[in-house]
């Protein structure tokens, strides 16, 4: 069986990705601990959670800046562009593959190539997660980190309530995204193939 290898994940992407993953997991764990503090869901103490959450948030924010700038100055940014073209039919095709085709050993409708790193479903999910979700999460998080700056009202509710609810909702949606992302990463040739790609930079496919 022939194996094709495409170098898709340069070093800076892999470093960014591992930092992003670690920080995000720590933020989820401490975020749950803060939200459910004093109850059975408390995984980490409140005081420790505040400290860890704040530090991880700052690292994640800096890392996000690296990602945005990196995508602007390197070729990696092109993978996120033109995501709206024929969007619905493409999404449907990919969805049908995940729902049915994958069990019939049908070929991937949008195979990974040097020009096409993501399938349409991935592309939309990543664009929304990274260019809509993350900015909302970071802005609301900064507002909560410096609550004295948001004494004013937003949409006629307390700024604190607005930003906290926004932060919790976006954080939760991105956590669900993470869960799905982790699962779809097991959909390579073997369950560990795509994880290996993020370590050595090469996307491998057996033909």
């Amino acid at each position: 069986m022939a194996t094709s290898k495409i170098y898709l994940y340069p070093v800076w992407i892999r470093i960014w990705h591992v930092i992003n993953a670690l920080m995000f997991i720590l933020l989820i764990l401490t975020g749950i601990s803060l939200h459910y503090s004093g109850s059975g869901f408390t995984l980490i103490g409140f005081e420790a959670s505040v400290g860890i959450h704040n530090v991880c948030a700052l690292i994640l924010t800096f890392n996000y800046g690296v990602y945005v700038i990196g995508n602007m100055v390197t070729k990696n940014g092109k993978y996120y562009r033109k995501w709206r073209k024929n969007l619905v039919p493409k999404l449907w095709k990919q969805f049908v593959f995940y729902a049915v085709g994958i069990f019939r050993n049908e070929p991937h409708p949008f195979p990974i190539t040097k020009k096409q790193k993501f399938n349409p479903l991935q592309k939309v999910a990543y664009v929304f997660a990274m260019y809509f979700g993350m900015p909302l999460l970071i802005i609301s998080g900064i507002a909560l980190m410096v609550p004295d700056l948001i004494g004013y009202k937003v949409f006629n509710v307390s700024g604190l309530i607005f930003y906290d609810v926004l932060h919790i909702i976006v954080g939760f949606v991105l956590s669900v995204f993470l869960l799905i992302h982790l699962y779809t990463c097991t959909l390579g040739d073997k369950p560990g193939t795509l994880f290996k790609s993020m370590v050595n930079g090469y996307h491998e496919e057996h033909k």
Partner: protein
Amino acid sequence: MKKTPTTILIALLLTFSFILNAQQEDTAKLKSIYFEVNDYVEDNEGCLKCHGEQKFKLEDAFGRTVTEHMCPDRFVDRDKYYSSVHKSFSCTDCHSYDLFEFPHPLDARIEEKMLCMDCHGYDESFAQYHFETIEVEFQESIHNIDEFSCWKCHDPHSYKAFMRNADDIEAAVLYDNEMCLSCHANFSQFMVLTDRGEINLVESHDWLPNQVAHFRSVRCIECHTEINDSILIAHKIMPKTEAVKNCTECHSRDSHLMHTLYKFQVKEDRKAGFANAIILNNSYVIGANQNIVLNWLSLLVFGLTFLVILFHTVMRIIKLKDK
């Protein structure tokens, strides 16, 4: 002038009977609102013409005058007095008639002052406020030291029952904390009552994140008193080593704040799915103000996602075995 016994007597009288007169009454200072709440406004002016002024003038029989500053502890702000809980009182309801004499006689000055319990204690009409329990709490408090009395915090000439009627919690918190800060953030006042060194409140609370937000949103007594559900406001001030320092005491569904700051309004219904919603009128407390609707919705979404993934995984395993 011939030194007759009469002239000598007159001279002596003029010299030694230092007839002192305070400044003339200024009726323009008397607002109509004072007369609406108090029947003794004019009588009270006998005291307030000096004690209601930051400065007062003394005049002797020779017409010589001197301007003096009123000691802050002896000053009574008319506006505050006539809007306080004791607004309908005559000065002589609590103070001796002998103080009408000026200079005030020593006997009247060293007479033991009335305290809260002299009127409020063991009286059916005040039973709902449990002043007796408050007195016990005070005696067990670290404030139970020489020269300390109810008046050190609750100035009878300006005190308002703020918390009991608080529509604006933020204003009530400010009012309440000013009582503490008048000594604990004012060393010249603090050193009058204790030999302890100066306290730097910002440094002693440096462990507390978002200090400004905390100081603005909660009273000092939230953490520095022991909860007592039988009285409206806890009065047993604990030593600093026993103060609440565990964040989750407040930052949790069963928030400490609902037994202290918000105990007057805990019966308010839950709003828009938020737990402890009464807090939302003034603040937002992470952990205490969870949105129950969102909590359940998130569990549902997370559960469904997990089920779909589980189903997909099982199907993949089955298909793998079929190969």
